[in-house]
């Protein structure tokens, strides 16, 4: 059975729609791609709102997209807005207006979700990704508002950072200084260099051989024409030559030479500079531009969620890897985190059938276990609140804002008193009832797990859990005493019972 799906990306500089076919001659195939320039970001970043003219144009384009979808008999679609939509002060009103006028519902992606989808798009590009991340590699994901730098080592994500160095943002900022074109270029380079050097000091240790670039600006030049570079891979030397060609000459000539609209040239140059500056810092030798975009990631995720394709790469592992790195940064105990993960995971699995929780919820619990005590880095008092603040201020790639809020609250209530209404402890009302219940359920598990390792000595790491007749038997096989754990267990189990109506009991084997 063949399915068609449309992925719409309402970006800060362009609107893109890709139509995909699943289950045809290939498992997943892009069959059409429509791109049109519309600089929504320029409005948002400058005024916080999108002008009426641009909203009208946006609606006109979306209506066209809609007619193209109809012509392909598209069965489902997903439309995402990124920073230009996200950062508008009136995004809810705007999105409702667009839906009323075009019938297309746009969801806003948080930065971390967007980057995660971008990252999936790169992974979806296949061999190029797997080859590149075998050694040390970095992904530079360039957007209109910000850039994301993710570092890999031997197939696993080491760190990911968001920097407000998007091409549109840089251009707006430098243009406001009113310099001549030559000085503008110098200013752009200085601005980029300064930010990247700070990044280097904080997050970099060695060199990174491969750089994977994802953007809507310079990547396309890598594969321009079909004669050469159709794999989108350039050596540093080839890249420098490309950048030279891009930077020299007037805007019109460059637009002609690269076959792009004139207004895109300054953005391509900034994007080119970003790649160059990062390459300098990382000392990268090879630059990859798989030429994929957010829309590919949206389609990949759709296919993944609908079990159409089975990803070769474990993306959840990347999310936990990211959380572990955050924990490391705040001097969290790795071994303790490991124990908590294990115990909480065991409890989660044992009550899975009756808990109403999903596999995704297990991931929240896992991350909460990793980050459970990160607030200690700031102060030994009010750990719950401090931990909540850290989690909320730190991006965890792959988690949406909503999901991050859940994790942060689990971490918070692991230490602080549980809030029996959303107004207490100022829980974000956006979480809604479902989110609140989820927090309660997962907090109960984490608290229980935490109580079983109260001494931080990992005595109960090998706990076995069985559920029978309203009791959760936690069997431990250890000759050691665990007085501290026994002292704290009743309180945690009371809360657990309150939530699940199941009484946890410790049984020594």
């Amino acid at each position, binding site marked *: 059975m063949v399915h068609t799906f449309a992925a719409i990306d309402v970006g800060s500089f362009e609107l893109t729609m890709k139509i995909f076919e699943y289950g045809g001659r290939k498992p997943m195939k892009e*069959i059409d791609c429509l791109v049109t320039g519309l600089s929504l970001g320029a409005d948002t970043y400058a005024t916080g709102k999108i002008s009426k003219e641009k909203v009208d144009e946006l609606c006109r384009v979306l209506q066209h997209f809609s007619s193209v979808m109809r*012509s392909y008999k598209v069965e489902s679609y997903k439309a995402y807005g990124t920073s230009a939509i996200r950062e508008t002060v009136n995004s809810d009103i705007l999105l409702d207006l667009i839906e009323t006028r075009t019938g297309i519902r746009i969801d806003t992606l948080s930065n971390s979700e967007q980057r995660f989808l971008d990252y999936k798009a790169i992974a979806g590009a296949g061999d190029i990704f797997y080859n590149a991340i075998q050694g040390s590699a970095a992904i530079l994901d360039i957007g209109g508002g910000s850039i994301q730098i993710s570092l890999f080592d031997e197939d696993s994500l080491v760190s990911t950072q968001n920097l407000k160095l998007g091409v549109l943002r840089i251009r707006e900022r430098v243009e406001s200084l009113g310099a001549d074109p030559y000085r503008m270029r110098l200013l752009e380079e200085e601005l980029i260099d300064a930010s990247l050097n700070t990044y280097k000091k904080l997050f970099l240790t060695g060199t990174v051989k491969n750089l994977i670039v994802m953007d809507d600006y310079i990547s396309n030049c890598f*594969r321009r024409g079909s004669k050469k570079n159709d794999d989108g891979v350039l050596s540093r030397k080839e890249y420098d030559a490309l950048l030279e060609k891009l930077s020299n000459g007037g805007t019109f000539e460059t637009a002609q030479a690269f076959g792009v609209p004139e207004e895109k040239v300054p953005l391509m140059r900034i994007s080119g500079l970003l790649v160059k500056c990062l390459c300098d810092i990382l000392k990268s030798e090879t630059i990859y531009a798989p030429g994929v975009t957010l829309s590919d990631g949206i389609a990949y995720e759709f296919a993944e969620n609908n079990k159409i394709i089975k990803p070769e790469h474990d993306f959840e592992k990347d999310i936990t890897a990211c959380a572990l790195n955050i924990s490391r940064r705040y001097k969290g105990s790795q071994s303790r985190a490991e124990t908590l993960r294990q115990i909480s995971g065991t409890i989660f699995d044992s009550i899975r059938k009756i808990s109403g929780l999903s596999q995704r919820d297990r991931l929240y619990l896992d991350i909460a276990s990793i980050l459970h005590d990160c607030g200690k880095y700031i102060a030994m008092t009010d750990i719950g609140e401090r931990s909540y603040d850290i989690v909320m201020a730190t991006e965890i790639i792959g988690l949406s804002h909503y999901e991050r809020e859940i994790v942060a609250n689990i971490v918070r209530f692991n230490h602080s008193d549980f809030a029996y209404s959303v107004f207490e402890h100022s829980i974000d009302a956006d979480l809604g009832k479902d989110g609140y219940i989820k927090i309660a359920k997962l907090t109960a598990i984490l608290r229980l797990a935490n109580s079983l390792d109260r001494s931080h000595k990992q005595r109960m790491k090998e706990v076995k859990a069985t559920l029978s007749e309203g009791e959760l038997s936690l069997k431990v096989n250890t000759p050691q005493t665990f007085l501290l754990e026994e002292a704290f267990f009743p309180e945690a189990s009371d809360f657990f019972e309150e939530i699940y109506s199941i009484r946890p009991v410790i049984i020594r084997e």
Partner: protein
Amino acid sequence: MAAKKNINFRDPQYYTNRELSWVEFDKRILSEATDPATSLFERLKFLAIVSSNLDEFVMVRVGSLYDMNQAGYDKPDIAGLTPARQLEAVSAALHELVYDQYKALRTKLLPELKSNGLELVKGHENMTAAECKFADEYFRTLVYPVLTPMAVDSSRPFPLILNKSLNIGALVRKKEGSKELVFATVQVPSVLPRVVLLPGSSNLKRVILLEEIIERNMKSLFLNYDIVCSHPYRITRNGDMSIDEDDAEDLLKEIEKSVKARKRGQALRLEIEHRADKRLVSILKKELSIDDSEIFSIDGPLDLTALFKIISLPGFESLKNSPFNPAAVPELPSGCDIFSQIRKKDIMLFHPYQTFEPVVDFVRQAATDPDVLAIKQTLYRVSGNSPIIAALAQAAENGKQVTVLVELKARFDEEHNIVWAKMLEKAGCHVIYGLVGLKTHSKITLVVRHENDGIRRYVHLGTGNYNDATARIYTDVGLLTCNEQIGEDATAVFNMLSGYSEPKAWNRLILAPLWLKERFLYLIDREAKIASSGKEGRIVAKMNSLSDPDIIEALYKASAAGVKIQLIVRGICCLKTGIKGVSENISVRSITGNFLEHARIFWFKNDENPEVFCGSADWMSRNLDRRVEIVFPITDDTLKARLWHVLETELKDNRRAQILQPLGCDYVKEGARQKKAVDSQLIAVKEAVDMAKAATPKKTSESRVFIPKTKPAK
């Protein structure tokens, strides 16, 4: 090698001016009109074509030179001529051409026509009494009511003389009162037939031109005047329009306006009977602000497109070519499911030798096929009652998504294009009215079909327009394919045309204005490199015109590097052959014949791995830099071989081909007498028929053996 380094390949002396080269082309058409081996009516047709070509040339090219000159633009062209000098040279060449044309008519064609039983009566004075009586009656009943005679005096200004209209100018004098000469004019009505058959014997049919009948009756138009003299005249106006598209809010309206303006452009040519009264000529000269060099004194009938009417007279079958019927396409028997046939393999169509019907059917079947989701097509010039337009409209009514790019800027077709573009819109098609700043000349159709194993795209690519009428006269190549890569490219082409994409890379198609020239230069240069390395470099290219300086320079360099370059260029060719160290390895031939050579085929030897391309683009700057064109590679070996055969046959042609002479811009026919005559067009006709025959299953009734029906297999 050292000498080569010093050659300036852009030296103007290595190039021919494009307008002069065009005049040479019209001369070649004229030479077809004097070729005794061609049937008489065909020759008359060629003579008429010379005239209609000339009209367009004067309106567009001379008009453009005129504008440049008026604007004080004096940059020389690639051949080193400024617009002023070009105007001079072109005027001289045109006078010579027209002289030769009328000489051929008077001395050869008209006498021959008469000896074959058809006489064009030279002037009304030469009619018999009975004929005069008929003519006068004809005038009174049919002509007189539609005439608008106009006299010019102090109260009545000089009237607007319409572009390309035929008129009779007269000097008249009042019978009473002032003896002053007055200029009077009357337009020969275009609504009436130009050629009038006179009654008479059946052995010799006599015809006369309408203007002669009017001239004979001039006195009845100006009753109170004496007619001092009267002569037919005709003017051609500047028809080149330069629309500033950036300023045009609505392109459609702008073109409608500009079509109207064309009727009133500056007069660039006055054709008038050679024995016309000097006083009459001088009035016209003054009123139309025209120079002596722009006046053509004609010894014969004005506007020889009237010959088209003569050759369409009934009878005289022996003087005409036998009617031509395009052969069937073996891969696409009538009534077949065109999509399943394309799925089997790529299909090449060679028009007009093979019928254009499958292309119409392609759109027609798509319009009614329930699995078809969308049809997208570019239309440049279509026929009056186009079945393709009808099919597209039907498709939209059937709920398909139909996108049509209508090129409103197709010269002289604008008015026509606007009408059916509006009609398509009404039917529910998404019509794109061309692109700002670019003419869309590409010929591509995309049909998107929903099949069991997913979306499949069927594409037709061609070198000629989607015009079923001209497809019977123009030689063109078309390709029907469902190759996935071409399908993807086709989708990207339409997204690009509708403003919804900037393609990152093309799989197979090569597009102007952004990528095509670069690719051609690369391909030519590659041959040069191959030749420089001691291997054989070779290029065979067929096109309508060759004028792009960058391409010519690349060809010169390739020739200097030792590449053998054989060009088949029907029309303008700014390249010169036989220049020492520059173009000794280049030969150029032009084929003119019953069919208009229109296909563009480019063959590169590529070190024994030939690459062949077809497309809509000529090697002209306007095609490569200012138009949307598509060139597509032919990759299937059988089809490649077929195209090579087409080129090879044309290279051997010694019947139709004329060879560009070294260092010049004149052409000479190859002497066919010593060799076996090779007429590439005739060969193509025969081969198409043979292919169709070979594919037709023999009818069982022709056999004398009865075939019993057997029990059907279970």
